Each structure stands twice: as C-alpha cells, then as structure tokens.
C-alpha cells in the first residue's frame, strides 16, 4: 500500500504549527498505525529531517500513552487505541490526516505529543482511597457483591488516554473523572471519602480548563475501553448529593 499522511508539525509549545504532507510507500496492512509512523520516521531521519514526535509505550492498548486524532476521529476509525489500529483499516492510496489531541487542557509539547498531566492532578484531588500501607484488614473481611465488583472493574478499566477529551466538542474530561468516581464509589471501601472525592475531583477538573459536559456522548463513542456514559450520571448524582449535604 501507498499512503499519504498529512501530519501536524509543531516544534514546541510556542510554535504555531502546521500540517505537512509525507508519502509512505510499501505499507503493509499488518502494520499498526504507529509502526507506519516508525517507518516514516526512519525515512525522515535518513533524509536529515526531524522525525515526528508521538507518545507511545506498551503498544498493547493498555498503558494509554498513545493517542492521536486520525481523520478527525480520536484514535482513528476503529474504537481502539492508536497502537492497536492497523493499516488494513485504510485503503491503498488513502490520504490520512494526523493531529494531536485537541483540547485546551492538553497543551501541545511537540508535534503529536501533548501534556496530559492535568489528569494526574484530578486524581490528586481525591481519586484514591486513603489506605495506609501495612495496616489493611484481612481482605475477605469485606465482601463486595460480585455485581458491584464487576461494575467497578468496568469503570476502573479507564486507561487515561484522553480520547474522551479529544472527542468532546467541549473539551470536557468528565468521562475520565466519572470513571474514577464510579470505580471507587461502588466499593464499600470507597464510601467514607465519597462526598469529598467527587467535590474535589470536579473542582480540579474545572480548574484545569476542561469544558463542561453537555451529554453529547462523543466521549463514550471514542473510548477504547468502553467506559459507559452512565458513569457521568453517577458523577452528577454523587455531586448533587454531596453538595446538598453541605460538604463543599
């Protein structure tokens, strides 16, 4: 296959950035999208050009490092991570646009690499259970109904890639925040801090410059881990409940 890629090139956060067109020949349909970029980068390096910077690590769809907007869609045409998108999803001769996540709260560092540290700060604002090491009670002393555990697991599967933010017309990070609130809020261990958690995390979310949720649903449609939209309803319920108790 021969592919034409138009890639967002931006030297650093201060640079204006622009789309640049490259041709990639002999693309195999078995290549992952990132392997196609590797091949292009080898060509660029040998030609004396600066290779394209992009984030990636495990290439197994679990670390959440990779993620670019492909032809206007977060992670491209399949609902998966960019590392698990393969070139067989494209036609021979295709022209493919590649851009970084587009969101005010994710400033561009270089080319396709963005700064997602705002997600870490949302977790710092309460996305945990305060369990000091070394004093935990015997694990089976605290039964968790299987249904709750399974549901909590589904939300806990969030990989923090940021596709939800990139897909959202408002640049909202609500699906990410809601996934954590749902995961911990469904477990008995998470109850003591449930109110302070939701208030702290939502406050930090807004403080980071993420937009508001208006229930469009693009986030869940783009989520490679299938985090459901009802986590956001749960977040809203928890938030209203906490605020009504005057815990703000």
């Amino acid at each position, binding site marked *: 296959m021969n592919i034409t890629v138009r890639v967002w090139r931006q030297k650093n956060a201060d640079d204006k950035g622009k789309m640049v067109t490259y041709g990639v020949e002999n693309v195999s349909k078995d290549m992952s999208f990132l392997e196609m970029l590797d091949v292009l980068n080898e060509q660029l390096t040998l030609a004396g050009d600066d290779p394209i910077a992009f984030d990636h*690590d*495990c*290439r197994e769809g679990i670390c959440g490092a990779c993620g670019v907007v492909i032809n206007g869609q977060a992670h491209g045409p399949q609902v998966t991570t960019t590392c698990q998108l393969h070139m067989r999803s494209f036609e021979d001769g295709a022209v493919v646009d590649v851009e970084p996540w587009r969101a005010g709260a994710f400033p561009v560092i*270089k080319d396709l690499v963005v700064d997602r540290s705002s997600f870490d700060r949302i977790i710092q604002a309460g996305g945990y*259970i305060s369990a000091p090491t*070394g004093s935990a009670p015997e*694990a089976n002393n605290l*039964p968790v109904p299987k249904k709750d*555990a399974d549901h909590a697991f589904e939300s806990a599967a969030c990989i923090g890639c940021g596709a939800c933010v990139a897909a959202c017309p408002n640049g909202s990070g609500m699906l990410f925040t809601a996934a954590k609130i749902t995961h911990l809020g469904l477990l008995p261990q998470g109850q003591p801090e449930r109110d302070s958690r939701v208030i702290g995390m939502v406050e930090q979310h807004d403080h980071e410059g993420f937009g508001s949720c208006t229930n469009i649903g693009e986030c869940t449609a783009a989520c490679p881990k299938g985090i459901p939209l009802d986590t956001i309803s749960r977040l809203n319920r928890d938030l209203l409940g906490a605020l009504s108790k005057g815990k703000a």
Partner: protein
Amino acid sequence: MTTTTTTTNTSEFYGVGADIHDTKAPSGPIEQRWDTRKFNAKLVNPANRRKLSVIIVGTGLAGGAAAATLGEAGYHVKSFCYQDSPRRAHSIAAQGGINAAKNYRNDGDSIYRLFYDTVKGGDFRSRESNSYRLAQVSVNIIDQCVAQGVPFAREYGGLLDNRSFGGVQVSRTFYARGQTGQQLLIGAYQALERQVAAGTVEVHTRHEMLELIMVDGRARGIIARNMVTGEIETHTADVVVLATGGYGNVYFLSTNAMGSNTTATWRAHRKGAYFGNPCYTQIHPTCIPVSGDYQSKLTLMSESLRNDGRIWVPKKAGDERPADQIPEDERDYYLERIYPAFGNLVPRDIASRAAKYQCDDGKGVGPGGLGVYLDFADAIARLGLDTVKAKYGNLFDMYAQITGEDPYKTPMRIYPAVHYTMGGLWVDYDLQSNLAGLFVTGEANFSDQGANRLGASALMQGLADGYFVLPNTIANYLADGPFEKISDDHPEVVAAKQAVTDRINTFLSINGTRTVDSYHKELGQIMWEYCGMERTEEGLTKAIGLIRELKADFWKNVKVSGVNEELNQTLERAGRVADFFELGELMCIDALHRRESCGGHFRAESQTEDGEALRHDEEFAYVAAWEFGGDTPILHKEPLEYEYVEMKARSYK
C-alpha cells in the same frame, strides 16, 4: 546422562574476583527470618523522617508502591519516570494475576508451599531467604490492594475469587480479568498521587536518569534529563532507589513496552554496582509471531489458551498449504507426541524450545516460517463455539485485531518471545546493592526468581518490594542519616553532569548514516539468535565478537538528528541502545561462563540424552555477580545453599 565437555578456554572474556555474600539475611528458622530482620533493623523516629530524602527512579509496582509508602511514612520522596504519567509504567501490561498464599480454596496451599514452588520453579538458583519472605508477604499484598479498592474478581458471595496458573497444583492466583497488572498499578499510582497532594512526594515525569552520583562511597543522587526541555538536572538525596524494571528490550522485539530500558541499572553498574545473573531471560511460548521487518514489538497471548488449543506443525518441511488443506495424518502434534504426560501444557521453557526446533527444521508456518499453529478446531467441535467464545473471546478478538485473521476459522499462529528478565542488579536481603545507599527493587534487581519465574509472581515481587520490604529495610540505612548535604558544585556532581553532557554531545555530533533503530534491530537479532532460547559456546563466542563490531560501528556511524534542548526521541533511544550494547555483551559472557542448563538458560552442550535441561549443581549453585571491568568484567560468586528445599532435577515426561 551426558555432561558438559568443553575444551575452549572461555575465561579470556572475564576475570574472577573474590566471592560475595549476603550479610543481611538472618540465620535461624526460615519462617522467623523476616521478623528477625525487621526487629533488628534500626528505626527512624517519625520526627526525623522529614529531614531525610529519598530518590526513587521508576513508578511501576515496585517504585510507585515504595514512593507512596515512604511518602506516607514521612520521608521526603522524589520520584522519577520517563513516561508522561506514573500510571503508564509497564507493570500496567501484566495480564494474568498475582500469587498469594491465602489458601482461600482450602486446597493445601501455604506460605511454605508457595516458597517451595518458587525455589523449585527457579531451578534452585534463587535464595531461600528471599523466596520465603516473598511468599510470606504475599498475604499482606492482597489485603493492602483490596483496601485501596483494587477490583479483584469476586465470587457471588462477595469473597475473592482465585484461579490456578501454569505448573502449580493449587489456586492461589488473584486476578482482575486479564488486566491484573493495570489494576494493581492504578492502586499504587493512586496511593502515590495521594502523597503528591499531601506534599510528601514530588513526581518528575518525562525525566530520564542518565547517571548515578556517588560521593564518598555512597549513592547520593542522580543526573536526569528533562525530556521536554533537555535540561540536565542534578537531584541529590540521602539514598537512591532504582525500580526501573527489566531489560528484555535488549532483544529489540519483546513483550516489553517500547521505552523499557537498562540505562539506569547500567549506569549504576558502571559506577560499581554488581550485575547479577544477566543471562537469565524468560521466553514466553505463546506470543503472536513477527509479521514483517517493520515490527516494533510482540504481543503475548495468555498461556491459558493451551488448556484447549492443540499445537501442531505440518509433518513435511516447507509445506505451504493453508492449515485447512493439511489432512490430519500430515500434521505433527509434536508436544503431545514428545511429552505425552503433559502434552500441550508443558512448562514455558520446554514449549518454547520445542517450537523453535520445529521451525529450525523448516516446519514453521506463516510469514518467514517462524510460527506454529495453536488450533481450537477440536475444542470448538467438542465444547461448541459459544463455550469457546465465553472462555477466550477477548483473546480471540485481540488476535483477530492484530493479525486480521479469524482464529475461530483458522488456527492461531504463535511463536515464543522474550518476556521477563530474572537477572538485574545484585542486592542483599535488604535490597541494597553492593554500593552503600543504592537500593534496587522489583524486576530491576536479581534476587527472588532464580533462573526462571513462575507465572503471576512478577506482580507479587514488585509489590512485596515496594510496599513491604524496602520501606522496612531502607530505614536501617537512613537511621545513620541525614548525611552531609551535597552541593551542586561538588566535584563528583560536576563530573557526573559533565559526563552526561559529553555523551549527549557525542551522540548529536556523530552524524553518521545509520538510524538508531537499525542498530537496535541488528543487536536484537544477534541476541535472539545466539543468546535466546538455546545457547552454545560457539554461538555465544561469535555473538560477543559481532556485538563488539556493531558497537564500534554505532559510535562512528549512528545518526541522531535534532538538538538536546527539545523533546528528542531519537536522542533518548540512542542513549538506551548504547547501554544495551554493553549489557548484551555481558549477557553473552555470563551465558558463556555458565556451562549448565537451568531455567531460562539452556546450554545445548548441557542436556540429558532425551534433550532435557541438565544442571550442574556442584559447579554452578551460585549467583554470578559481575563487576564492571570494561571489556573484561569480573565475576564474583555468591554461593547458594539450600537448607529447606532439596535440589532435584525437573522432569515433565
């Protein structure tokens, strides 16, 4: 039985130094040793802890858990990772589960049995004291993770579920679907972020450690590069912990994350830290095979597939017919034929080598002939499609996604791949290296797994070291601190920083004609060919020569574009590959000197008449701890003694 017969003098590659000993492990009954050590270790008064500073490099299970725990204890912790967030460390990719001797199934499990299985599984090349402690602490790990909200699988009654894992006769593996590593790491990460909010831990993401600072015989800090700005930063502390994972990426293709590297451990090795058992590499038998030259990594398919899948190759070499056109009597179900008792469920090292032999004989399937079939046709006929889907559906989907083939219709193709490295920096029972003040945890150290690792034990060691062992043993060291403050203009700091700067400038100024990746791939091929599933004296000797040539060429002809003062991923990789060259050479030397087969190390010259691994306990029951010596490393032996487990040969016939 045959024995090793060799006439070549391989000692020209290395020197031999004095024996080394672990001086920290208490003697006495094994079940009391850890409590004894904890009681005898010095403590640090809570009010004094905030005056003490700790650097921890790496934020996986070992590093993240240690940073969270030490921060919570009141120490001042600086944590470093190369990823954009600590949540992305490669521990996140572990699938199967975590072992713990809870005996929830009432099937005869115990701490002693987990200890026994670990020592035996490691082919009697690990320490009894360390393995026992690992089994002992495993029980607390599950309690800790549940308290943090890790969503382990549950029974309908709300209690924790378990399953069993390869080569073990009890159900002691706790799991969270196929994403156990992810859930455990997220638990540690959340505990870490909680400490960041509390102000006890500073996290430096997108930072890479490039040098260790040694002052007056003690590890006192690191030189790190800020990967966004290129700034070469000095960070000093009272103690340094490396929790930087394994070095499987020396093979280029492996199941490791792309960024996993040896640089932190290798820079420490060059500063005097001994490297233990570098040649011990675990090869996992069920990975998706390589499909082309462009391939960047390999993906594991869970070993559980071998419960129902049958492995076969065409009987005739070079048979290129599609699988469905090869009649039953022209197929060789070679594992069932050679190992009738265990069949397709032989252990990892046996299954891996058997696949290699079939492919070496030209019977491999798929592109390049490097693959064997894992066929579910019989299972589908016997159990029905729905049952197979319910059991393995997500794995089948993953396979289809990566290969574009439908494994329900055509057999999967699998091939072994590099998975885990049991070697690492040498540490004592306190997890301290031979350098004072340098501690090493998790996969980065060599200590607990021996020559082979049981499934579901890697997560266990990472968290045992991070939550429970290191936070106790490091206090014994820190009780003598705080040490004199090191200023940024101390001659050792200035020299370390200058060395890093010079090295970076060298990479950027070579301006040759070959890319970094092309060197890495070639190094990886040499390692895989000669220091992979099977090693020979001849092959290893050849590999050392090839690596030395390639390394010399790298320093003359590599092309690293861009500048230091920006995000420069080529520059990052150049530094890592340069260190892989030196480590790869040491791995070959270690593999060459160990003239026996054990665990993940199979020397073709040392096998029984029916082709099984043959250990030589009387000669090689030691840890090989290597001191850096340029082209001639120096071997220090730590003798291993077994008081509780009798050394026996493993057999699967």
